[in-house]
Each structure stands twice: as structure tokens, then as C-alpha cells.
């Protein structure tokens, strides 16, 4: 049986760098870094005080006023990027053959924390507004998006922390291949929250300055927020113009530790290999890797090993981490970085690492892009997303025929 080819026909992106894909992309290529002061909540108790906060006013969600009042910050961020992806692919609404696969992280936590703080201080009799809890469970964002665009095909919310939205994109592609949907809106959204801020600081995993992926002095992550969505379509039924081809994906598990990656990156490498095999792509033809690249000492060293093991010691692939520009957007990271990878393939530019100065020998010989975007004809690109629980997901995108 011949598998149908899948194309990406729409991209939606909202990060601290900008409100849409065009604004984010031009800032990325120019080497901007959105990691800075955070005032969404009090960060003064923590060593890490910088993050990539969305500071502009979020666009009005395409929902009735009654619904808009119930949206969490994460929902609003997600709806904006989802709307852009739908618009870019030329769809005003979906139908019963249009699926929805969303990756979630902290989700509505930021809003639920407002309620829960009063619950803790005032007890269960608190009169704190209950609507702050309405998006507390991670599936809420997908439900608002499905409602806004009438997407009545298969629907799923993946909640595997930092790999959620990458896996959601892979599941979306499998649905199209298996004939369960003709097109799927897929990706993810996440917002900053006190719980994740306090949590990563408690693990001493936050760099006091902007995160420095692959740098010798890297000291941890910078947290961020945002959303990235793609519209995937079966090529022979595609209505939108192809930006890139979705090649394949792979998911594996470390079976090692809840928060530390396996130091040899064995299962992470297996995820990259599985994705390349799924895509039928020769590892030597991978020209760009959008790394998970969190900036923690453990991740970047293990990931470099995984990349070399999967692509070959002689790989010429350029590597960069979008987290140096938009922070670690947790549940959204797979979607945000898949969107950036698709734009890199479509525009022929490898995005940079803007904060990296001095490459860690433990991460050599990975070819890291410095400063600004590097013009590069990209035949195939890999986007990595790894997560708590030892969860690894890799995606492969390829250049669309011109």
C-alpha cells in the first residue's frame, strides 16, 4: 500500500518575539532574543528572574463573548496561533474530515493559580471566581479551538510535558496516513505559570541570564510561552500551497530518570533514527536540526551525542535551538519549533543560536549556527523535543517540490 504524502500548508506562530509567523520569523533571522524581565507574577524569590513573556495584547479570540470570558491565558495564545494556521492554509472552518491534535503543558495553570491561591488562603468557602478553574485540565485549549473552527474529525490532547506538541503533530500525520482524516490542525500552546517557574527553579535548572544552548557556560533553561500550529493535509487533497513536506516522526522513552536525560542519549538517538526511517530519509541528507537544546548541561551534551549517533559522525547538519530566542515554551515547544523548522525549510535559512558564544567541546562537532540566520538550502530537517519522564519525539520535514 502506498502511503499518502503529507504537506504542511499553514503555519501559525505566536511567541514573545511576535504575534504571528512573519513577525516571529523576521525576528528569528535577525537574531533577536525575547528573554527578559517577567512581570506576569512575582519572580523575586527565585534565582532565575528572566523569561520570554508575551508582552503584547493578545488578539481577540474567534469565539462569542460568553466563551471569551472563560479562556485561560494559554487558551488565548493557542487560539491566536491556531487561527493564523487555518487562515494561512485557506480555511475559514473545518468539517468532519478535519482533525485536531494539540499538545499541552501547564495549560490553564496560570489562571487556576489565582483561584487556588485564594483557596489556600481563604479555605474552601472562598468566593474566588470559579471561571479561573474552567481551563484547568490540559484538554481545554483543544476544546476551545475545536469549538472556534468547527473541527469535527478525530481529536486528541497529548500531555507529555515538553514533547507534547511534537507528538501531537506525529499522531496527526498518522491519522491522515490511516485515512481517518484528510487534514489536521496540530501543534500546541502553553503559558508561563508560577508552578512551572517555581518548579524549574527548585530543580536549579534555570539560567540566571538568557539560556545558552550548547555553550560551555550554559546553566539551564529560560522559560517562555507561546504557541505553534501547523495545518497538515494529504497532498492529493491539499487546498493550501505546500510550505514543506511532513516526512515522519519517532517517539521513544529513556526508561532512565524523571527529569535527567540518559547521558548517552541512546533513546533520543533512537527517536531521531525512527523519524528518519519513517520518512525514508538518508541521515546524510539532513541539513538542519532544530534541537531540543534547552541550555541545561545534561540535555545539550546528551542531545549532541544523539544527533551524531543518528546522523553519523561526519554529519554536516547545522544545529540551532530556538529556545535561545523564545525560551522554553514547554508544552508548546514542539509546535513552536516545528513551525520554525517548516519556515526554515520553506525560506532556505537555518535559524541561529543567539546567546551561544563558546561551544562546549562536549557538544562538538555539532555545527551550531551563531548570531543571525544562515542561508542554507535545506533538503531535510529534524526537530527534536524531549521531556520529563524520559520522553523523546523527533519530527522530519522536507523541502516541498517547486
Amino acid at each position, binding site marked *: 500500500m502506498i502511503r499518502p504524502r503529507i504537506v504542511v500548508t499553514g503555519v501559525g506562530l505566536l511567541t514573545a518575539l511576535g504575534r504571528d509567523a512573519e513577525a516571529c520569523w523576521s525576528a528569528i533571522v535577525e537574531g533577536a532574543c525575547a528573554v527578559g524581565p517577567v512581570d506576569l507574577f512575582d519572580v523575586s524569590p527565585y534565582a532565575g528572574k528572566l523569561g520570554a513573556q508575551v508582552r503584547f495584547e493578545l488578539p481577540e479570540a474567534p469565539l462569542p463573548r460568553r466563551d471569551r470570558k472563560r479562556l485561560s491565558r494559554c487558551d488565548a495564545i493557542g487560539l491566536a496561533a491556531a487561527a493564523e494556521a487555518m487562515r494561512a492554509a485557506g480555511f475559514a472552518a473545518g468539517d468532519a474530515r478535519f482533525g*485536531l491534535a494539540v499538545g499541552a503543558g501547564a495549560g490553564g495553570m496560570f489562571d487556576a493559580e489565582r483561584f487556588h491561591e485564594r483557596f489556600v488562603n481563604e479555605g474552601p468557602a472562598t468566593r474566588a471566581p*470559579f471561571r479561573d478553574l474552567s481551563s484547568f485540565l490540559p484538554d481545554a485549549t483543544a476544546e476551545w479551538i475545536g*469549538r472556534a473552527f468547527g473541527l469535527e*474529525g478525530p481529536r486528541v490532547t497529548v*500531555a*507529555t510535558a515538553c514533547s507534547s506538541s511534537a507528538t501531537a503533530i506525529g499522531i496527526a500525520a*498518522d491519522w491522515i496516513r490511516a485515512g481517518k482524516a484528510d487534514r489536521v490542525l496540530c501543534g500546541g500552546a502553553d503559558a508561563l505559570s508560577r508552578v512551572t517557574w517555581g518548579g524549574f527553579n527548585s530543580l536549579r535548572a534555570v539560567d540566571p541570564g538568557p539560556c545558552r544552548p550548547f555553550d560551555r557556560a550554559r546553566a539551564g533553561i529560560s522559560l517562555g510561552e507561546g504557541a505553534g500550529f501547523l495545518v497538515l493535509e494529504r497532498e492529493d487533497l491539499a487546498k493550501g500551497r505546500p510550505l514543506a513536506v511532513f516526512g515522519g516522526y519517532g517517539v521513544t522513552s529513556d526508561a532512565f530518570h524523571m527529569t535527567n536525560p540518559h547521558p548517552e542519549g541512546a533513546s533520543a538517538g533512537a527517536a531521531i533514527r525512527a523519524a528518519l526511517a519513517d520518512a525514508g530519509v538518508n541521515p546524510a541528507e539532513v541539513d538542519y536540526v532544530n534541537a531540543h537544546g534547552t541550555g541545561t548541561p545534561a540535555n545539550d551534551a546528551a542531545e549532541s551525542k544523539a544527533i551524531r549517533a543518528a546522523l553519523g559522525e561526519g554529519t554536516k547538519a547545522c544545529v540551532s535551538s530556538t529556545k535561545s530566542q523564545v525560551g522554553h515554551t514547554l508544552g508548546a515547544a514542539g509546535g513552536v519549533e516545528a513551525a520554525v523548522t517548516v519556515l526554515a525549510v520553506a525560506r532556505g535559512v537555518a535559524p541561529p543560536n543567539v546567546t551561544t558564544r563558546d561551544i562546549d567541546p562536549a557538544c562538538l562537532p555539532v555545527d551550531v549556527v551563531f548570531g543571525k540566520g544562515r542561508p542554507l538550502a535545506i533538503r531535510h530537517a529534524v526537530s527534536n523535543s524531549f521531556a520529563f519522564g524520559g520522553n523523546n519525539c523527533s519530527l522530519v520535514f522536507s523541502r516541498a517540490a517547486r
Partner: protein
Amino acid sequence: MTTRIAATGVGVLASPGIGREEFWRGLLAGGRGPSKVEGWPLRPGTPSLAYQVPEFDAKKWIAPAAIRRLDRTGVLAIAAAKLALEDSRLEAPPHRIAVVVGAGGCGVTTTTGFHRRLVETKGADPNPMAFPNTVPNAAAGQISIATGITGFNTTLVQTGASGEEAIALAAELLAAGRCDAALAGGIDELAGMIHFALHRLGGLSPSACRPFDCSADGTILAEDAGLLVLERMDDAKTRGARILAELAGCGRASSPAPPLAYGPASAAAAAIRAALADAGLAGASWVNSAANGASDARCAAAIRDVLPRAAVSSVAGACGEGLAIGGVRAAATVCAIAAGTIPPTAGLSSPAFDLDLPREPRPLAGPAVQHGAGTGGVDIALAWRPAP
């Protein structure tokens, strides 16, 4: 489904019992009923009952040093995974086994506890031990760490359809060749915040969960874990596995409902119809319904529409409503098919609906459908039939 899927193992911890055989005996006997939960911060007069897993010694499955790093979700998850693997005598290599966990609200207790300490210490003293278990995929990660399984690993969240969603995805992964076996189902720990929210929304019963009964006055939360071992039928036969039941079809229906609200009954009917069509079945003898004492009318309407003559029962009378109870519901469906017996709905004395609602165990011949109902507009049905 183009690929035939076999259920070859059941790992279950739920109020009626632990392990496939004890659970099944307990379910047929009507379960143990709900019991009082201590320590939840609730207003005086708020009901605080839940269907809880009977006491057990976690050391049977987990090393004492490892138990200290786990929350209740992690303990339930590892126990269910090891029970399921033992039950199936699975032989697949670890990198070819998938773990697909449905988590309605997994991690909520640890997350609210973590945030409580942030509030109480004004952010000065977060608990680094607790943070890793705040993520919904902690259960799936802990299963991987405890068993050495390195294959496809993921966690899906869709309130009351989470368990069915995980099983449907596992079947798709098996069909696509992404794994050779899958541990799939759902895990729920009790979470005071979910109990509080359900009470505020008016969905909780003060006494018991009595699906389909005239006296039904709400649902009651459950603590539960239910994982199946699924394999491609051909592989299961080749290795001589004991096949408990065949997963013959999956049906999904999505409707534009907002969070915390169900879609219309027609969406539930559409999911059941789609599962039967996917299985190539014209009907089914039994529906293992999602009715939980608060969603009965919607579930009944869907069944009356699609399978008006089928026998209907719900495990919620004996197990309660965990959001990912679909894993336990699947365990019950598989046990019922293997035993050829329909379990009645516990607590049912005066049926409120014009359906065939057995009050005693009854012989089951032929296929069965289970329905998972998620708020936010997702219904999923699974069609099962006896092993060939």
C-alpha cells in the same frame, strides 16, 4: 479495523479488587461501595466519598527506595503495568512496547500540593521532589523507568474519554507498526481539587453512584488504574498467547462543546455507530456504558438510538467515575467477554430508562461496545468481540 488487535493481559486496581481475577469477582458481586476520604479541605457538609482501591502492599511491585520518589499516581501506574505484563506473559523486546496512558487529571494532587507550598512560603521554598510528578505524563514515565520499556510513550488527556482514547491510539500504533505490543488504558488518583470542582458544578452524589437508577443523584470520584496489553492478533497467536478478547473497532466523534460540557447525545451515538462500522459489525449484545450517575440520560439516549435491544450496564456503580476510568471499563469489557458474562450495574434497583438493564449477571454471547464520554465534546467507543 484493517489490523486485528488482541487483548492478552489485564492489569487493574479498582474499588472492586486488584488484579484481573479479584477485580472481576468483585465486580460481579457489586463492588464494595464508596468510602470516606480523609484530609480533603472541604466546607462542612460537603460529601467526601470516593471509590477507593483496597489497601495493598506496593512493595509487591516496587522497590522501597523507589516508592519514596512516587506519588499515588506513580504507585498505581507501576502496579497496573506489572500486573498487566505478568498476566499476558509478554515476550516483546522493550523498545517495541508502547506505553499509552489516559490521564484525566493525573498529577492534580501533586500539582495543587506543590502550589500550596509555593503560596504558603511565598515562593521561597518549592519542593523539588514533588515537581517532576506534577506533569500528566509522570505515570507513563514512571512505568517506563520501572519496567525498562523504551518504546513509544505518550499520555492523552480527555476527561471521561481518556482511557478509551489511549486504547484507540494504541490500536493505531499497532496497526502502523510503531510498536509490537502496547500497555494502554487509564490511571486516576483521587484529587481534592477535582472533587471540589465537581461539587461546585453540582455533579456529586452525597451517597453512592447509581447509574441508570431512578435514585441517581450524581457521580462519585474513583481511584483506579486499568491497563491492557494489546498486540496484533497474528503476533499473539504466533507466540501462543492467551487471547482474552479481540478489539475489533474504534469510533471517535467530536463536537464543538466547551470544556466541562458534554456534546449532544447524537455525538455519543455517532461514536458507537463508528466503532461498529469500523469493526464491520451490525450490532452488539452488550453496551458497557459511560453512564456515571450524572450523565445517564445522555448515555441512554445514544444507546436507544443505535443499539435499542442491547443489554446495558455501567461499571461506575461498582467503580465510581475516574476520569480515565475507560481503562478499568476496558478491563471489565475484556473480562466479561472472556467469561461470557455481562456484569450488572451495581446499585441499580429501579431502572429509570427504557433499556434492557440487567440486575443479575447474565450470559454474554457476541460482541460488546464500550463508550467513553469526555467533556469538551469528545466521545469514543470501542467494539470488542470474543477471541477467534
